[in-house]
């Protein structure tokens, strides 16, 4: 039995690290054939795959860059439009203010003219009324004076006085006739 184990030990025992140069044992020919075929066929497939991937990535980047550029352009346009609109708003506001001011002034002017006219009218009316009243009062007073004078005349008149008055009046008339002649 010792022989058996010994021979197994001698089978498996080796001398340490080293290089095996036996071409058949290391299976180099088959491995190189397999590697060659693998590289020959695999290379095309792999490079095709990777090229496609690269192209896809670059086209995606390009398209997104274009999109970005377009969006930036649009943003710029929108900003410009916003500026324009803001400018117009300011203009309109300023115009509106000035117009409102103008209208206000006009209205104030018209109103003041109207006011002045009305004032004049009022003054005139008051004046007229005053004159009318004064006239009325004068009439009344003169009427009353004539009435009182008539009363006094009636109460005091006698034939002598009557005659004297007539005499006096005739003289007056004569004198007037002489003057006219």
């Amino acid at each position, binding site marked *: 039995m010792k*022989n058996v184990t010994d021979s197994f030990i001698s089978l498996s025992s080796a001398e340490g690290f080293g290089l*095996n140069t036996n071409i058949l044992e290391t299976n180099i020919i*088959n491995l190189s054939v*397999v*590697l060659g075929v693998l590289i020959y066929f695999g290379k095309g497939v792999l490079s095709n795959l990777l090229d496609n991937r690269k192209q896809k990535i670059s086209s995606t980047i390009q398209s997104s860059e274009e999109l970005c550029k377009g969006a930036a352009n649009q943003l710029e346009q929108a900003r410009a439009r916003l500026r324009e609109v803001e400018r117009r708003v300011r203009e309109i506001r300023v115009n509106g203010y000035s117009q409102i001011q103008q209208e206000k002034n006009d209205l104030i002017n018209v109103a003041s003219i109207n006011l002045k006219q009305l004032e004049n009218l009022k003054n005139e009316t008051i004046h007229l009324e005053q004159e009318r009243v004064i006239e009325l009062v004068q009439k009344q007073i003169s009427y009353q004076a004539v009435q009182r004078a008539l009363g006094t005349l009636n109460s005091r008149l006698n034939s002598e006085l009557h005659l004297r008055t007539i005499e006096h009046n005739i003289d007056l008339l004569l004198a007037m006739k002489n003057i006219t002649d």
Partner: protein
Amino acid sequence: MDILQFPINMLNYFYEISGVEVGQHFYWQIGGFQVHAQVLITSWIVIAVLLGSATLAVRDPQIIPNGAQNFLEYVLEFVRDLARTQIGEEEYGPWVPFIGTMFLFIFVSNWAGALFPWGIIKLPHGELAAPTNDINTTVALALLTSVAYFYAGFTKRGLGYFGKYIQPTPILLPINILEDFTKPLSLSFRLFGNILADELVVAVLVSLVPIVVPIPVMFLGLFTSGIQALIFATLAAAYIGESMEGHH
């Protein structure tokens, strides 16, 4: 003794022509543990390749990716799509690194094992191969997946995560508990078995007919390796998504 000697010589002869080593390991003694050094060495190489390519990709990042950056971004997109379809639109984000690590490590391990002539480097014992053809690697990856989906479930739903064990009916409780053990088991054994079987078939064919005949099987092995990496990553993502979603 003479009777015994003959079969051993025969064995020796067959051993010489086959050169297929199964269960032979190059051990390192670290602390109290014996570790499989050939697995560690190839794992380090795989990790170095992955880190190196990642560094290469992010060294000079450009808006329109080129070369390595383009390729690794494509890989990242692939992993992210995988995680999104399995985990869901809302929660897949934090799990992309985990799923990606699983997928890339397994995939690069498998393909490195299938494409690089590891036989050139001779070890004192055993031989260099894909890290995933050692059961320890696949079990470690599967257990990490288990921990990940438990963690995902607990952080998402707290203790309510245990409610999923009696989800359709409480009768299914034993089966649901059993599932937590079968998931890492099936994950690890599927990957390990596929890769080991592939490498063994290639090795046996090479020992029988060294040239040309193993080539179709090697292509098949490449295909299987890729599929297995994809399956492992998809299942890990599906388990994580399922534990966060909360129903079967």
